[in-house]
């Protein structure tokens, strides 16, 4: 009744034809073309689909990454559509059995990819708006798919404010890119860490402490926050305090997923499937689910 219209089947790589059959569970075999160690826990993998096919994602979507024999898990896409050619990138944290094995892979190794799946951020509907993007921790990886998209269409948007919070300086992602953003006149970047070390000269505190340093126009701002579940409660309070409506606040949900195609049941939030109807939801939509936050 409600759920199906949000399903975006146009951009998906699967189901694909194979021996006259189509299977929504059969991954496409893709090749790792580059690996960059980002932090102690995260690596960035550059992945090439067969024949350099474009992934065709929307910012905020995810892919299911397979290591046959080990398993499959949802991973947010780090690349913006504007920077996706014959390859795309995933920033993967070593956090479980599967990602542990992914971290041992080498350039040239093949992995399985299904997707892109889910409802991304409808970035084209944000044209003309000031953008306030507040990622926490690893949330900067999916947020980058949107930030880079905005930067590459910079004239279509108003201000671009990025408030990034990390637990400690060693876990900061994309330091080179943060430095680039810092230099730009058209990006307002603020970074904070919960636990500074001796060399840290920046701001200290949880992400919400950054909000007092920014003034926004609540009538023309879209906020996007990506991070751990606990963060959303506090970030949304700050945003509401700045005068934003729940409809102006977007967030991305993390859930256990086994299929990515709205069948296996694991990612249900009330009657919604995060893998199909999400992972991107407005706070207004999330408020309608008892189980969301």
């Amino acid at each position, binding site marked *: *009744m*409600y*759920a*199906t219209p949000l*399903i975006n*089947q146009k951009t998906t790589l699967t*189901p694909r034809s*194979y*021996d006259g*059959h*189509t*299977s*929504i*569970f*059969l*991954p496409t*075999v893709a090749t790792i073309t580059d690996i960059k160690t980002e932090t102690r826990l995260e690596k960035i993998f550059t992945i090439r689909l067969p024949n350099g096919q474009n992934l065709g994602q929307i910012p905020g979507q995810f892919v299911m990454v*397979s290591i*046959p*024999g*080990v*398993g*499959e*898990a949802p991973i947010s896409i780090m690349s913006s559509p504007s920077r996706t050619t014959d390859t795309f990138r995933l920033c993967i944290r070593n*956090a*479980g059995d599967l*990602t542990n094995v992914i971290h041992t*892979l*080498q350039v*040239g*190794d*093949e*992995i*399985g990819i299904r997707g892109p799946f889910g409802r991304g951020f409808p970035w084209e509907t944000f044209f003309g708006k000031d953008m306030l993007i507040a990622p926490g921790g690893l949330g900067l990886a999916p947020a980058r798919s949107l930030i880079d998209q905005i930067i590459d269409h910079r004239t279509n948007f108003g201000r671009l404010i990025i408030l990034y919070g990390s637990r400690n300086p060693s876990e900061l992602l994309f330091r080179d890119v943060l430095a680039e953003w810092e230099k730009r006149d058209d990006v307002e970047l603020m970074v904070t860490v919960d636990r500074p070390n001796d060399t840290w000269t920046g701001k200290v505190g949880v992400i919400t402490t950054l909000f007092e340093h920014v003034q926004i126009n609540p009538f023309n701002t879209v906020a996007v926050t990506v991070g*751990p*579940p606990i963060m959303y409660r506090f970030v949304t309070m700050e945003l509401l305090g700045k005068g934003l409506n729940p409809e102006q606040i977007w967030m991305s949900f*993390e*859930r*256990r997923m*086994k*299929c990515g*195609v*709205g*069948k*296996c*049941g*694991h990612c*249900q*939030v*009330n*009657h919604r*499937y995060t893998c*199909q109807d999400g992972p991107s939801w407005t706070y207004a939509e999330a408020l309608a689910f*008892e*189980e969301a936050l």
Partner: protein
Amino acid sequence: MSLYILSKEKLPEFVKALQAKFRVVGPVRTETGYEFDDITDPEQLQLDYSTTILPPKKYFLPQHEVLFQFHSGPNGKGNKHLELRPIYQDVQPTVIFGVHTCDMNGIMLYDKVFAEGFRDEHYMERRAQIYIIGIECLHPCDEASFCKDMGTLTAPPIYDLHMTEMDGHYLVDTGTEKGERLLQENLYVQMAQKEDIQRLGQLLSAKWPRFRMRLKVSKDQTPSLLALGYKAKIWEQLGDRCLACGSCTNVCPTCFCFDVEDRMDINMQDGERARVWDSCQLREFALVAGGHNFRGKKSERVRHRVMRKGKYIKQVHGLLGCTGCGRCERACLVNITIPATINGLHDEMQLESGS
């Protein structure tokens, strides 16, 4: 479509004729009750059975279903190379005899779940080869049944053939072209006459009072009752009793949630990926890699199951997720039942509003 008469004595011959072309399964008697199993001897078929431990869902969604096989080994350059081959398991012409009307309602939901949104070819390929021969329920299975409440007392329009036992023979209704062709396979049926059809009408009317109602609210009210009762106390009480064993979801004709498992051969290069029945009642069901569990409490999981049956599935697929078959009630070790839960919630809500 059309009504035929099949005499009871000719049933074994009909089954034999089908066996020449199809895998034939149906309810058989076992030490512990009835179960759906392969029919090797037509005499095994028990059409006058009460209920089975598992619904026939195992033929639609096998408990362990291989999705693809893989080979993962080094290529010439020493890199990991992948080869994948999809598997469509248990795709074979199969006739399922003696499906109760509640279970047909469960299959009708499956047909929507796996066809809507992303079409699941593993299911659809198998489904296309399955012939459903229903049996009209003239008596309730037992005290746990509440099919009358759930509106599953009559056959939904998904059967290929549907049989009603009447005066020593079966009245056979053809629901599909597929079913029509099944009947053409044998010479034992004859067209039903006007009197037979009148007699069938009497028989079906007479069954109504034999079934009792167990719910205090109609099935159409359960979604709103559940919506309003999300924060009710009953969920905590049920959570305290629930053992989180997953028996209820295993035996449920509408449960379809699955986990995905990889199995590696001992050579560490070949293997297969399969989906296996999973249960939202198990602790790990909504656990993510970072350690956060989105339904960590039993009360939340019990509530999720009941919400899914009585509300969520209807919101997504337009049908309720409970057929009133009573299997979860029979399987539950601590006597958690859908009727007592719905009625208990109703009572609690009535009290709340009265105070």
